[in-house]
């Protein structure tokens, strides 16, 4: 056993200094395949990150409820009744929904005139509870803030602007501290939202709207009913029980069948997030298969060259057999050679891919939505392991089949007269 290992190692070292030009081409083919698979997987990973991030742009693990209309008769009450939640339902819901970590209401006014200086535009104004900033990911840019519990309690006329809306009204001027006329009522601008990726929306992107305390909104527009109820859970797994609690609480208060999904139906982003995760995983597998096929072509190149070497060396193989080489001592060096070419190519490919990834990460992508959504290619341990396993597998195959042909050489046949 030990003798065999020594023989194989010695023969391998003697043989590998040969065929330099071929070796370079082969290694290049494998390197290219490796770069292809690594970059595809890295872009897939980057895209997945961005999609998950964009999905969370609206808020993580939240559910959004609109109003509803009953479709079932319940306790003598007819179907077709409109169910609207009101501002004072929120405390009731908070008490009845222990699974939710946050519950808030929204009132919305579309086409509201917003005036500053000589600029007037129409925009969307939402009245919301102060928790909205955290729950719906409205994070302020430096120098500003979202409104707080005091603002809400005191019905202060403060307004928080989406970054696009702020730019449309104020241009280059810093809006914080300015007075904005909202439907001819003056409001103090207290913050502008940080730009964010947002995929889902139920009334238009957050960057294009403004938010004020819900109490202030109710006072100015004399509104009591809510356009939306939004609640959040800590983990996606808590969502089903929170939804059940919501249906029970609301149906008890407004007297409808709690199983009436025409009323209780809502937008559950936790569920959507799970779907997105599996979709992205499938997409990554698809990219991985394309990369693996590219790598396989490189592996076929290695095998091809190894076949040529075996053919060229048939006589030498015959001589080695004649002077006492075991079969595995003939095949061993070929398998090693195939492995070496493959792994060497893989190593080069990895280096190139790392350089490319670092290069892409250095390119600024702000203000280009397509590239921003594509994200930055990202290499992960998972990707490295998958690629290494593929390389090893292809390397063994690329060496094994030519080696098998080498072992089938009949010394008596090859050493005959030419």
């Amino acid at each position, binding site marked *: 056993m030990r003798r065999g290992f020594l023989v194989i190692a010695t023969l391998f070292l003697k043989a590998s200094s040969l065929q330099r030009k071929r070796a370079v081409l082969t290694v290049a083919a494998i390197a290219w395949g490796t770069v292809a698979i690594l970059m595809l997987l890295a872009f897939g990973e980057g895209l997945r990150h961005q999609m998950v991030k964009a999905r969370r742009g609206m808020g993580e693990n939240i559910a959004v409820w609109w109003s509803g209309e009953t479709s079932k008769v319940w306790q003598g009450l007819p179907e077709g009744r409109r169910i609207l939640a009101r501002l004072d339902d929120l405390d009731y819901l908070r008490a009845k929904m222990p699974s939710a970590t946050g519950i808030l209401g929204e009132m919305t006014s579309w086409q509201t005139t917003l005036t500053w200086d000589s600029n007037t535009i129409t925009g969307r104004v939402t009245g919301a509870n102060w928790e909205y900033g955290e729950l719906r990911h409205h994070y302020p840019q430096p120098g500003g803030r979202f409104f707080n519990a005091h603002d809400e309690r005191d019905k202060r006329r403060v307004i928080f602007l989406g970054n696009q809306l702020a730019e449309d009204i104020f241009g280059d001027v810093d809006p914080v501290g300015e007075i904005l006329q909202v439907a001819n009522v003056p409001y103090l601008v207290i913050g502008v939202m940080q730009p964010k990726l947002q995929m889902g929306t139920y009334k238009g992107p957050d960057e294009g709207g403004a938010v004020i305390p819900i109490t202030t909104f109710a006072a100015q527009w004399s509104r009591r009913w809510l356009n939306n109820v939004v609640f959040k859970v800590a983990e996606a797994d808590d969502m089903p029980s929170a939804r059940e609690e919501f249906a029970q609480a609301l149906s008890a208060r407004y007297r409808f069948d709690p199983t009436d999904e025409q009323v209780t139906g809502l937008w559950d982003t936790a569920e959507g997030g799970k779907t997105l995760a599996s979709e992205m995983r499938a997409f990554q597998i698809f990219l991985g298969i394309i990369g693996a096929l590219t790598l396989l072509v490189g592996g076929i190149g290695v095998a091809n060259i190894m076949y040529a070497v075996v053919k060229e060396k048939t006589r030498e193989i*015959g001589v*080695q057999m004649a002077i006492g080489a*075991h079969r595995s001592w003939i095949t061993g060096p070929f398998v090693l050679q195939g492995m070496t070419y493959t792994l060497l190519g893989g190593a080069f490919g990895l280096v190139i891919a790392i350089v490319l990834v670092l290069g892409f990460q250095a390119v600024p992508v702000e203000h280009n939505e397509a590239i921003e959504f594509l994200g930055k290619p990202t290499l992960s341990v998972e990707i490295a392991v998958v690629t290494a396993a593929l390389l090893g597998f292809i390397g063994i195959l690329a060496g094994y089949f030519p080696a098998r042909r080498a072992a089938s050489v009949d010394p008596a046949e090859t*050493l005959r007269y030419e």
Partner: protein
Amino acid sequence: MNWPGRTKKNTGSSNGHIIEMRAITKVYDTGKIKVEALRGIDLVVDKGEFVAVVGPSGSGKSTLLNLVGCLDTPSGGTYMLGGEAVAGLDRDQLADVRNRRVGFVFQNFNLLPQLTALENVEMPMLFGGIGRRERRRRAMEHLQRVGLGERVEHKPTELSGGQMQRVAIARALAMEPDIVLADEPTGNLDTGSGSDVMSLLSELWDQGRTLVVVTHDSTLAARAGRVVEIRDGLVVGNQRAVA
């Protein structure tokens, strides 16, 4: 692989025969046609003999040599090499037998082109499991003995035909085999180199080695102690040289 009964150097059987072939046949089955290359050969070679095998092309000389050298196995008959039955050995066991008992010299030298003369001579010892240092020492010794002590680091392409054949002979001797088999060793050489190689072979015989040489070359055959003539797969002549 180690099987003590076989690896033990057992130079010749009790009766002193190195090669003992009885009723050897070899049939090549190419599917449709069966070719009988050997049709019942009896051949006995004793330790220290120099036997030349002669015969026209297609007579079965090379087939016989392949069988003697365990590169191939006979279709029928019994073959004892150094008192050891060759029948029934697997490929790796046959390789071990070739490695320890047989030294090959080919018409076209068959040196490994990427290796130096020294490395070529070391190769059988590498397969024989001999340590690195000992390999080097013995390879140097053999190369000096064939007069190539100055050219050990040369590759085959840097050597003349005669020199290549001498390297091949040094390689054949590396494992101190029971028998040296040469297939037309002078066939690719000019007259001068050819006679050098012949002298070298005669010298080996004088040192007590056993040689079997297949040749067309009557000068070489004339140097042998015995000439075996093959025709149509049968031994038709077997005469000792008159000293």
